[in-house]
């Protein structure tokens, strides 16, 4: 290739970007719309696609069978069964999973192990904390659905252009 025409073409490709809108998302202020919860249907044996963020625990469905904890056993040992003061007829031992997010790898295999539709994963990925103890989510804390207050932006793709609104 000719040096002059090659250099000119390279410069042209770069200059074409000048008027375009930028692709970068201003993350802490805004974020993209996430897919819904990742949940598992034990009857069909398959999961519903969604984002695998922090868990959500539907306390009234949990029977304390420990299958999630066993599934996690050799993966990250993040789930521990803890006692909670709740009078629940389907959970005689009254034990519920507690997740340590300092260890969790977000593989979601605990959700796939739950036969009672009690565990799912939410679109909440922002688990930043200054202390490790804050990353241990008790069953009551896991039962609260996440509230994402950040403004949502859409990521748009056109033929030669990709940008965040």
């Amino acid at each position, binding site marked *: 290739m000719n040096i002059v025409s090659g250099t000119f073409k390279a410069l042209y490709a*770069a200059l074409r970007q000048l008027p375009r809108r930028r692709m970068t998302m201003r993350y802490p202020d805004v974020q993209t719309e996430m897919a819904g919860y990742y949940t598992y249907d034990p009857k069909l044996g398959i999961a519903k696609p969604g984002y695998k963020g922090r868990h959500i625990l539907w306390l009234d469905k949990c029977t304390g069978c420990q299958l999630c904890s066993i*599934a996690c056993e*050799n993966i*990250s040992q993040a789930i521990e069964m803890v006692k909670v003061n709740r009078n629940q007829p389907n959970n005689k031992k009254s034990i519920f999973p507690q997740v340590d997010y300092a260890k969790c790898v977000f593989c979601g295999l605990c959700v796939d192990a739950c036969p009672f539709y009690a565990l799912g994963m939410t679109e909440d990925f922002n688990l930043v904390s200054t202390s490790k103890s804050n990353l241990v989510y008790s069953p009551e804390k896991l039962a609260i659905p996440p509230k994402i207050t950040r403004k949502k932006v859409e990521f748009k793709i056109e*033929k*030669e252009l*990709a940008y965040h609104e």
Partner: protein
Amino acid sequence: MSLPTQSSGLFTEQVSEDKLVVSIGPQHPGAGHFRFTIRVEGDTITECIPDPGYVHRGGEKQTEYRTYIQSIPMIERSSLLDVTNITLPYCMAAEELMGIQVPPRAQYLRMIMSENQRIISHLYWLGIQGIFLGHSTMFMWPLGDRDIFIDLGQMIGGARITYSYCVPGGVRNDMPPNFKDRAMKVFEYFESRLKDYERIFFRSPLFEKRTRGVGVLSRSDAISLGVAGQVLRASGVKSDTRIDEPYCFYKDISFEVPVYDDGDTWARCMVHLEEMRQSMSIIRQCLEKMPQGQIKVKLSPQQRAQAGEAYCRTEAARGAMAFHIISDGSTKPYRTKWSVPSFRNLIALPKLLVGSHVADMPAIYWSLDYWPVEADR
């Protein structure tokens, strides 16, 4: 005189002004967790000794203590850029031992995910290759566009990089209904983007000057060293597991295997570029041919495999990836052996570096697409 090895302990060495021993890595920005020592005479490299093993975590041994499904998140982490392609041969070998037929739709979903992962891995490679050649734009653009493909993978896999999507028996979830439209939009965008890449980088005279005739690996050397993937294809050997030993439904899909005869860094870069195009075409065909139906054979979490051996080979982003599992009939494998392409390509590094200039060293090193974590396992 050869360089002292690690086992020789302390040593003293006479050095002169024009002969130097330079240690590159493991803290070198770009070497990854990998160290190699080069001896230079003036500006020419006369000897190179790679020293892998800084990120050896005993992955093969760890699989012996986990059930088949529990190993998957751990296996993924040894090749973060290429997670579906490293879990796929493992799952296929485990399925062979368990005697399971995977439903066709699951196999198509696996193909879509592994081709998507190939693009993600190649774009990461391209970004680093760009900055190694001093081209900052080629660092920013691919890493930005990589995010779009990560978003595509996230729609199916539910996570950005480590999906744990393939499991023995099939895949974990079906794709969302809006995936096809989104993928077509992304491919249309990325095809125009690849033309931009060519204008600014691949067809640029500066890039050709830096890479043409640099680090030439001849066809006979490539075969005798046993290299894999792009390194082999850039040396004129048409070898691709997807065509040689088709797995999943690759035999129903038409695609080309880019082969260049030059064997230099330029050829290895062009193979990467062409493969991204082919991967997009494969995903397009998969989305059209995909049948409806089941995506998973339900297995018990404590699924037992029959006693015996299974060997499965697939084409990962960096070359042929193979898993050999020996089972004694229990819920855990007796032994697994991973044959990873990065480690096979490493042997070409001393061959390519000797005789080249120090300034060409980053370009040659990264053109092998060496991923230390995958090689050390």
